[in-house]
């Protein structure tokens, strides 16, 4: 099973007004996948495992439907409201992440650190030009990095990078070399630069980059309107070679149902950032115009308990909740098997640093824990939304399965558009997800470290923080891995996040599309094409 590594995802875009109410709904993905052959009156069409490959036609225009980040979205990669789909087409980073979660070269050809893990030297690729014809140098890379650290810009990635370095530590010894001097040793530093906020922009372009979109990527910007449509065209002089397509058109659509209809009606070719529920996926797969491609383990689902809110301030209640629910039931109902168990550990299975760990379901223990905490017959509201079609089935299945432990869950539906402003990190218990594809270090630091901006459970455990610090500064790979694994176990046992499962993303795309490949935050814009 391929794994999906990656970098970060949704919460950075909290302010987006995405999606759809109206839309899709509860329903789970279902069974067709392995092991689930239904003998119901209606045999479901099977869902293909991957996208079609082959030799595409030269050129062509691909139409992508995407959820807008906001009506005020921008092409500035560092901004919290950046228009995600454009970034990969327009820009490059110094480094990117491959399918196995390893950091690999992009604009940086190679890199190394000193023994302490404090001074990192990146040797940059030569002969790379920006779309406006200017040559890419280390000045651009340094400018990009310093911008990310600029407190006025308030880039989400700043919260990850600021503890490590300051702009004084960024040096450009020569045009082809970038040197970064960290404040604290970190052997995972390059992995942090795979984040999609770290795309390289031209030196001094800060004021205009949000509209100009000038980068080194395979496509250059022709047209962009925030929250509306846009178009990028092939950049003939791209350093990796000209992309297959002539152009990509992007259409912003908040409603997941609208996106699906557009695909089914042949108005668009690909649905970006859209996980289709299983029933819809079946409809799409059955259509003669469109089909489904899976992005395996592309997101992990989580029910974060806010550890600063009653009743989850008590670790016994958190443990009781974790012991009470049946992840297998959740996986069956919500995903119909198109995923794997999470065991309350957000690091994807089989990725570097993954800790194997299991949690036993035990309703009786849950009852005992609750009674110990004085919370017999616990009643909680669980917020969900149509933001993602899996939330509600997951919440309903959760509600079913904790009933055995005497826990009464009331599922409350909240509006999708304001879900991440009104509910997330505000309500004691809700349903959410993250895209996989972020390095373990970034994940654990960003989502679980005390005081981190995306710490959705508001968990604060000094021993956990210490483990992370120790891991970062440990040069020895094995030792580092063990430290990270210890940290994961701590999350699973004491943290506030219930992570029932990793899910495949069911991506809707036209049958005309060839060579679609996406993993984590890496989308292959270069090779995607249309059937000849």
């Amino acid at each position, binding site marked *: 099973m391929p794994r999906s590594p990656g970098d970060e995802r949704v919460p950075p875009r909290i302010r987006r007004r995405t999606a759809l109410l109206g839309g899709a709904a*509860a329903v789970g993905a279902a069974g067709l996948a392995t092991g689930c052959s239904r003998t119901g009156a209606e045999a479901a069409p099977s869902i293909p495992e991957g996208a079609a490959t082959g030799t595409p036609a030269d050129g062509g225009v691909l139409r992508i439907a995407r959820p807008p980040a906001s009506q005020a979205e921008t092409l500035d990669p560092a901004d919290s409201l950046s228009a995600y789909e454009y970034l990969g087409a327009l820009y490059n980073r110094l480094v990117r992440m491959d399918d196995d979660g390893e950091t690999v070269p992009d604009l940086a050809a190679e890199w190394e650190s000193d023994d302490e893990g404090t001074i990192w030297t990146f040797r940059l690729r030569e002969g790379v030009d920006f779309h406006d014809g200017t040559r890419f140098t280390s000045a651009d890379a340094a400018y990009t990095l310093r911008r990310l650290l600029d407190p006025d810009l308030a880039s989400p990635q700043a919260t990850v990078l600021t503890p490590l370095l300051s702009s004084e530590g960024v040096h450009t010894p020569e045009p082809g070399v970038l040197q970064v001097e960290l404040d604290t040793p970190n052997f995972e530093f390059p992995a942090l630069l795979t984040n999609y906020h770290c795309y390289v922009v031209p030196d001094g372009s800060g004021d205009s980059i949000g509209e100009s979109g000038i980068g080194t990527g395979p496509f250059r910007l022709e047209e962009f309107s925030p929250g509306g449509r846009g178009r990028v065209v092939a950049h003939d002089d791209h350093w990796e070679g000209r992309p297959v397509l002539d152009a990509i058109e992007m259409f912003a659509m908040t409603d997941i*149902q609208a996106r699906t209809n557009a695909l089914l009606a042949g108005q668009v070719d690909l649905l970006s950032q859209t996980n289709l529920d299983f029933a819809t996926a079946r409809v799409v797969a059955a259509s003669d115009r469109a089909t489904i491609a899976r992005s395996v383990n592309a997101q992990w689902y989580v029910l974060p308990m806010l550890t600063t809110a009653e009743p989850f301030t008590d670790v016994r209640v958190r443990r009781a909740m974790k012991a009470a629910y049946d992840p297998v039931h959740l996986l069956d109902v919500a995903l119909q098997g198109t995923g794997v168990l999470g065991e309350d550990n957000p690091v994807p299975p089989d990725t570097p640093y993954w800790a194997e760990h299991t949690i036993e379901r035990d309703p009786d223990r849950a009852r005992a824990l609750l009674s110990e905490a004085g919370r017999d017959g616990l009643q909680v509201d669980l917020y969900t939304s149509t933001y993602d079609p899996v939330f509600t089935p997951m919440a309903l299945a959760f509600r079913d399965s904790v009933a055995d432990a005497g826990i009464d869950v009331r599922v409350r539906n909240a509006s999708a558009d304001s879900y991440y402003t009104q509910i997330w990190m505000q309500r004691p218990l809700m349903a959410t997800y993250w895209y996989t594809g972020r390095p373990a270090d970034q994940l654990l630091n960003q989502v679980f470290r005390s005081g981190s901006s995306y710490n959705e459970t508001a968990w604060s455990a000094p021993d956990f923080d210490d483990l992370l610090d120790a891991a970062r500064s440990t040069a020895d790979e094995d030792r580092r891995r063990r430290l990270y694994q210890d940290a994961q176990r701590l999350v699973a046992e004491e943290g506030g996040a219930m992570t029932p499962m990793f899910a495949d993303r069911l991506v809707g795309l036209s049958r005309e599309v060839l060579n679609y490949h996406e993993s984590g935050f890496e989308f292959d814009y270069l090779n995607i094409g249309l059937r000849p």
Partner: protein
Amino acid sequence: MSESNRNSPSTPNRATAHPAGRSMRALLRSRTACVGLGLVLLHLAVAALAPLLTSASPTANVPDDALLGPGSDHWLGTDALGRDVLTRVLYGGQYALAVSFAATACAVALGTVLGCATALKGGRTDGALMRVLDAVLAIPPILALLVVVTVLGAGPLVIVLAVTLVYTPQVVRVVRAAALGVAPLDYVTAARARGERTLPILLREVLPNIVHVVAVEFAMRASWVVLLISSLSFLGFGADPPTPDWGLMISENRTAMVVLPWATLAPIIALATLVVGLNLSADGLSRLWNVDRSEEAS
């Protein structure tokens, strides 16, 4: 001059019947009203008796039974969570009927009181109230509803409150017009000449004579409220899952309509027949009682 014998007092069957019996019989003679009220009663009965009609649970998720077509175990198949569609449709009326009827009742009751009072009071109070109500009417109902529901959360009580808020002005208009039609009639004048107070005049003389308008208004308004609430559910502001509610079911299953038609069609049909029933009731009753419905524009 009236030539017909229709109102002639000598027609014997009219003269002897008890008033209540008479209106009952008239009702039975109006096919429209009968069919309409019959449909509404059927829905009420099904909603009330749902637990007896089906043994399945409307909320239990059975992943192994997901997305089945119609069959002997599940007459209308199952939805994506393996819930029996027929069971959910049968239970589905409970929420729609309870919330819609409660909301309509509140709006109509409040509107009737205000409408009668303002019609009898007349003068400046009436003018001012109507002006304010006009201003309220000018604000799109869906906007007001959405704002109230977003701010207060989407509970059934909130929806009742919001619908009352939105529809009361319209009821006031209709009832006021009806009351204004009654107010200058001589029997009201007679009561005023006796020096009776406003409340007894309202209760004894005016209300009994616009009760039919109120009844028609109720039926009509209820049909709108049912649709409105289903729209709210559709937009995600209605019932919380897993409540079996028609609007929610339509919204949940509509994407899969191609492969799973009944999960969407069944709640649509249930919703439509209820609305048809309410509309037919309103039609039949208004024709039976000669209610002028031109004020109903809103």
